[in-house]
């Protein structure tokens, strides 16, 4: 009989609370714009902050309220932009392409050596603070993987053996977090399609580059002269490729004496790289 009293008491209490909860949930219901909910579902949901707003739900509100354009999410890509523009009934620039991060350095351990023992923090920004670079190239990748750590989409892996990060192009959304993080500005965003890329940002003299890196740009201008379309120029000590003129003939890649021009977005190369990363990691 001892069990009867508590059972009845708890039963009655829970009945009262249940009724109250049901009533409160109707009385104090927060009205959510269904459009905002839909917009939030469309957005990637990584809360990466690349749009400049605090998180995806805030961006969804802003897009529905008309305070942000439907293509404000750089990580979303054309598909998300199209869906959002259909949702809020606003046009977006249909020519805008999705972007991908590209690493502009091939200075792996065996390519650009280390001239000193580094004993500081294992952090690119901290290593970059020291005036003297422990890597032979003072423009190249330091290899502590800040970019890998900040990537909200797990699109980067560190190749520990080479000391260079690898960007998995399928996963990269072009949010630009890694571009912002890199203290040496060797990651850039490019339209996500097959491209020829100048994989060296060094501004050092040709002699210094020769001494410090096997795959560094030595400003020989052979690519500039050999390009049949005239798409390559040497501006301010760096190779610049005009992507509207480039027809991907690949002559420059063949001619480059230090192999600092590379393909990106090429399916075959990509698969090979990922395989390598999996084996290496």
């Amino acid at each position, binding site marked *: 009989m001892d069990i009867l009293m508590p059972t009845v008491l708890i039963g009655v209490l829970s009945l009262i609370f249940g009724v109250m909860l049901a009533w409160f949930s109707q009385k104090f219901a927060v009205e959510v714009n269904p459009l905002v909910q839909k917009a939030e579902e469309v957005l990637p949901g990584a809360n990466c902050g690349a749009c400049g707003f605090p998180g995806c739900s805030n961006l969804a509100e802003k897009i529905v309220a008309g305070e942000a354009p439907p293509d404000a999410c750089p990580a979303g890509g054309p598909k998300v932009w199209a869906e959002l523009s259909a949702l809020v009934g606003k046009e977006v620039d249909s020519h805008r392409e999705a972007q991908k991060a590209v690493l502009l350095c091939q200075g792996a351990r065996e390519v650009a050596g280390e*001239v*000193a*023992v580094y*004993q*500081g*923090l294992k*952090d690119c*920004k*901290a290593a970059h*603070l*020291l*005036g*003297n*670079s*422990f890597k032979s190239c*003072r423009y190249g990748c330091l290899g502590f993987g800040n970019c890998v750590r900040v990537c909200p989409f797990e699109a980067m892996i560190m190749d520990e053996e080479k000391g260079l990060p690898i960007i998995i192009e399928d996963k990269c959304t072009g949010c630009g977090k890694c571009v912002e993080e890199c203290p040496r500005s060797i990651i850039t965003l490019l339209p996500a399609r097959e491209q020829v890329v100048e994989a060296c940002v060094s501004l*050092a*003299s040709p002699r*210094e580059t020769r001494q410090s890196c096997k795959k560094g740009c030595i400003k020989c201008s052979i690519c500039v002269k050999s390009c049949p379309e005239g798409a390559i120029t040497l501006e301010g000590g760096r190779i610049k490729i005009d992507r509207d003129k480039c027809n991907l003939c690949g002559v420059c890649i063949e001619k480059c004496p230090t192999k600092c021009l590379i393909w990106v977005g090429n399916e075959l190369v990509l698969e090979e790289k990922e395989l390598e990363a999996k084996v290496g990691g």
Partner: protein
Amino acid sequence: MRLNTFPGGIHSPTFKEFTATKPIKEFPFPSRVVLPLLQHTGAPLSPLVKKGDRVKRGQKIADVEAFISAPLHSPLAGKVAGIEDYFHPLLGRFPALTIENDGSGEEERKDPLCDIENKDPAFLREWIREGGMVGLGGAAFPTHVKVSPPPGKKIDTFILNGAECEPYLTCDYRVMIERSSAILIGLRVLVKACGAERVFIGIEENKIEAIEKFDKLVKDLPFPARVVPLLTKYPQGSEKQLIVAILGREVPPGGLPLDVGVVVNNVQTAWAVGRMAEEGLPLIERVITLSGECLKSPENLQVPLGTVLSDLVDFCGGWVETPKKVIMGGPMMGVAQTSLQVPVVKGTSGFVFLSNLYEKKEYPCIRCRRCIDACPMRLFPTMLGKFSEYQAFDEARDQRVLDCMECGACSYVCPSNISLTHLIRLAKAEVMRRSRKGGNQ
């Protein structure tokens, strides 16, 4: 006797016995010197000469319009061999003038400065700037800026900094003993330029000889001056700590010694100024210490600016054993070097060659608060380190991370071997970058 000092700090071994008793030797003119176009804190210089030009010793070869800058003079008579990127001890690489010695020894000297006490302070400041004077303690802040009080501020005290708290370094000590008359002339110029009424000379009590010498000499000065013996403690030679130790005044956060009416200058700066007043030679030479267990004969050397380190090592007889680590400056605040081709710049107080990398495994913080006790700026290094590690840069800013002067005392005492100073440096750089960018980001 109770000695003046500041709260915090560390008592590290001084290692000064390597060179403390060695008289200053004059380094012979090298066959070439390399002069980076940025040797001071401030704006980079533009060259006034071009490739192929002949220059005299003491001739001005680079200058810039900016107020916070100091011109550069040629330490050699010779030919300009080129202007290109070269190793820089602090910046990695920087455009530099190379001058090849032609052996002619032609000189361009200024007129000696006499009747110092009746000169106009503004004239003296311009005269100091034209001599390319910068603080020779290590930070290389232009001296003429230091002795120019902003309008409305009065300088009442001048402190001559002879503390030299960095382990290994003895160049200031030797200069105090061997070049004391020039120091006093320089002191008179600097005091007149900033308008101070009294002078304190702060010297750590392990430099007895220098204290005794200056005790006698200061009586002849035309203004009240006193030698203050200080406790041997690192970082006693830091400007703000020295002011606390001698005057008990605290420089407000983010402020300068000028804010409390004080100007602090290094003894070697005073020597360089005095030398220009006497001999008419601008800042083209300085005294540095080459020390460490790897050198065959550690020395105090008076070297022309721009002398390449490998030449200096040869002069000292080479290695006993190949060093694992080469540091420009003292081991606490110095900068590790990656090449022996680096030139001596105005801020070089010496080179230390260590035979050990001192690699230590890092452990988690055990909250022993030794770093807090050691911090001379009374910050919380352990907290700042954590903020930096977790990218909480706004909190780091609110906890006054920018007041840190990177003396390294916290890293030195940490029983868990945490690189606190490096973490704090990272946080400082990030806080400054964000404040430059603007907004509350």
